[in-house]
């Protein structure tokens, strides 16, 4: 009798000793079987509200104090975040599969337009506008990437954190395509379009960008997890996306740039996914703690005007396109879009 089979026979009997058929994680509370999404997300943040401190270091370790202050110490609390579900229910595998198909579409789009020698046929006045309005948006897009990654690492449940990771990656997706377009345009319209120093100078000095730069820089230091989430997902990002996805997509279409028109309509799908997640999380919280309507309302108030001033600064540039859009028309679109979004959560 070989050791292998002998051991297995005895091993099974002995190892099987107290075997109970387990259908789910022991930390799963519901009777039904969890979905794959739930299996790989449920209660992953064991460190939230862990005593005496989240992490196995001195309780006064700077990062223990940071989490105790900005997460456990945030006014944005509910008893149990673990029942929240992101409407899109994305696991990592779902996310990369979803975005592969979308990136395939955008690659196809660029292919089709490049075959028509699209860049060279764009009017110079339009390209000049892109240099000031569009190309520097990789800086603002990067800030949104950073702020999503921040509230994601601070969120009290992996159901929330993971949606934040994917939102941060979506920002990287959008800004990388703007980098590609900047380089492609530069081959027909001049090296300056792909010159990092010049683009940074516009972001740092051009008056149209300064209100946006101000609200973005301040967004980076809103360290309370609730405020970071609200400022980003309930105010700055929806306002920014209404401007740089929806309004800008329309402006591009008006000016014969259907490549940017269709690309930014595609990016708006990512923004809508982030919006749906945001609405679901806010409803989840306000249903459990009605006072959060007041709390979220106060944060919205704090960030709304700076975000609108930021949009207004860039909206002024919309007028300068060959077929321009009036600044007020752009701002009406942005404000209406933002109000409709807030109304979905009863926070208008």
């Amino acid at each position, binding site marked *: *009798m070989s*050791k292998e089979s002998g*051991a*297995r026979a*005895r*091993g099974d009997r*002995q190892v*099987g000793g107290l075997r*109970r*058929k*387990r*259908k789910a*994680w*022991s*930390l799963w509370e519901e009777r039904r079987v969890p979905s794959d999404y739930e299996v*790989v997300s449920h209660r992953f943040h*064991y*460190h939230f509200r862990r005593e005496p401190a989240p*992490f*196995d*270091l*001195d309780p*006064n370790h*700077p*990062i*223990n104090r940071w*989490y105790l202050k900005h997460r456990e110490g945030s006014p944005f609390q509910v008893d149990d975040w673990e029942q929240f579900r992101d409407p899109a229910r994305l*696991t*990592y*595998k779902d996310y*990369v*599969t979803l975005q*592969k198909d979308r*990136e395939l579409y955008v690659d196809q789009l660029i*292919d089709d337009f490049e075959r028509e020698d699209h860049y060279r046929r764009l009017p110079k006045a339009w390209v000049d506008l892109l240099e000031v309005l569009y190309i520097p948006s*990789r800086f603002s897009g*990067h800030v949104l*990437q*950073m702020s999503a*990654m921040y509230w994601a*690492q601070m969120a009290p449940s992996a159901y929330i954190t993971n949606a934040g*990771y994917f939102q*941060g*990656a979506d920002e*990287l*997706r959008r800004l*990388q395509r703007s*980098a590609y377009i*900047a*380089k*492609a345009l530069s081959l027909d319209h001049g090296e300056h379009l792909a010159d*990092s120093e010049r*683009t940074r100078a516009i972001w*740092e000095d051009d008056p149209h960008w*300064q209100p946006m*730069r*101000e609200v973005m*820089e301040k967004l*980076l*230091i809103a360290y309370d997890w609730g405020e970071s989430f609200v400022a980003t997902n309930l105010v700055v990002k929806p306002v920014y996306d209404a401007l740089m996805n929806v309004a800008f997509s329309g402006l591009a279409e008006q000016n014969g740039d259907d490549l940017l028109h269709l690309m930014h309509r595609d990016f708006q799908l990512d923004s809508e996914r982030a919006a749906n997640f945001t609405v679901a999380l806010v409803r989840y919280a306000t249903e459990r703690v009605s006072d959060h309507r007041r709390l979220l309302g106060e944060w919205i108030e704090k960030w709304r005007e700076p975000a609108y001033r930021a949009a207004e600064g860039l909206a002024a540039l919309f007028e300068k396109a060959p077929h321009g859009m009036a600044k007020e028309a752009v701002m009406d679109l942005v404000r209406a879009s933002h109000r409709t979004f807030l109304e979905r959560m009863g926070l208008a």
Partner: protein
Amino acid sequence: MPKLERSAYYDLTRDMNWRFKYVRAEEVFPQEMVHNPEVPYEEWWKWDEPYKVTYREYVYNQSEKDHGVYSVKAAIARSKLFDALDNGWKAALTAHYGAIALPEYLASIGESRMARFGLGASWRNMATYGCLDETRHGQIQVYFPYGLLDKHPQFDWAHKAFHTNEWGAIAARSMFDRMFTANDALSTAIQLTFTFETGFTNLQFLGMAADAMDVGDVEFGALISSIQTDESRHAQIGEPTLRILLKNGKKKEAQRLVETMWWRAWHIFALLTGLSMDYYTPLEHRSMSFKEFMEEWVLRQFLDMFRDLGMDPPWYWDIMRDEMNWYQHGLHLGVWFWRPTVWWNPDGGVSEAEREWLEEKYPGWNDTFGRYWDVITENIRNGQTEKTLPQTLPLVCNMCHIPIVTLSDPKQKHNAPYVSEYNGRRYLFCSEPCKWIFDVEPEKYAGYLSIVDRFLAGHIQPPTLENVLAYMGLTPDIWGRDADNYAWAFQKKVDQAAVGN
């Protein structure tokens, strides 16, 4: 395909660095979240990843990989393959999932900290991919054992371990919290990606993938090798960070960061991989001993890279080389003897044939550790297995939180733990480097209570061993047992020969 090659536009995807006007740089990058040793900000803008990748390439490659690995899993789930696996290998698998699965996801928090507080846009971008990678590794390495729950409830610990105060979970968690979950962005770049991932896991996963295929665990082999292909992408984050530190005269700081983490990684590695390679992997599938693996893969390759970058090996290199001869043997004996306190079924791994292999790989093994197993084997043969189970707690190191095991050579001077006093409290350590790591920055650790400190402080009432198991979150269906129900104690070498044909 879009006409522009990645290299044509890549620099425009990573130049988003600027001087702040409306907020101060110290507010955007506070010291507690990124410990910048006075390297000028604009130096960090030159951070250059050797391994370039764009978002579109990332989602193309990654969706293919996941599709492949999950289909392997689905195929295996239908087969009886798992049941045919050796019980020793199942021990290695169960231990790995409990100690590594959720922490991989925790590494996404460390990566996202760099994605927000990394001091250059290129660094923040690479960490954004790293964050996604670790989310993948965490989710996939939790999903696979979930599919094995019906095989044994111990696989539940792939999800539960880090919620508990089991001593092995504390050892892993206290290291990973220091390494990335609660580490500042700059230290994480050096201590997670460079020291731990490049130094150890990069190779450990390679070693395990090969063993898994050898043993016939196709599912785990596919999983681990697929994870491995992501590792080099985000493990690269350490190198550009190190280069900028060295270029700006911060070698002392860089050396300190590596040295305060390398040793801890070595101890956890010896616990997980040492036991797996020297005792759990079936004899006929062992390609090399743990010591040989360390010397070939970790030491030689890492030393080369260390020197290429202008770094020195850690001061305790010789102490580690000595420990490579015996430390894993002590840990194995400790884990086996205290088996009810672990969530896997340790394989004794000391049948006569296995002892012969151990003597060949570690000359003198039978005169040191072998003598303990003689007494234990005797007790088992006499039907006195209760004598092979613990009646008290081992001492646990206040740094690595692993039981204080000592060289078993009676001629050596003493077994006493290393001691530090700090703010009126006494701390005990298993080794000189663990004591040194504490003494270097005691304020990071001082207020934390080891499992023994908690026992002595009365946190476990009544203070019985049974209650300690409950405190550790261990339920009877999880308590570790001998993987082969002591079969190895009755195996004569002659039986072994019968195994061959």
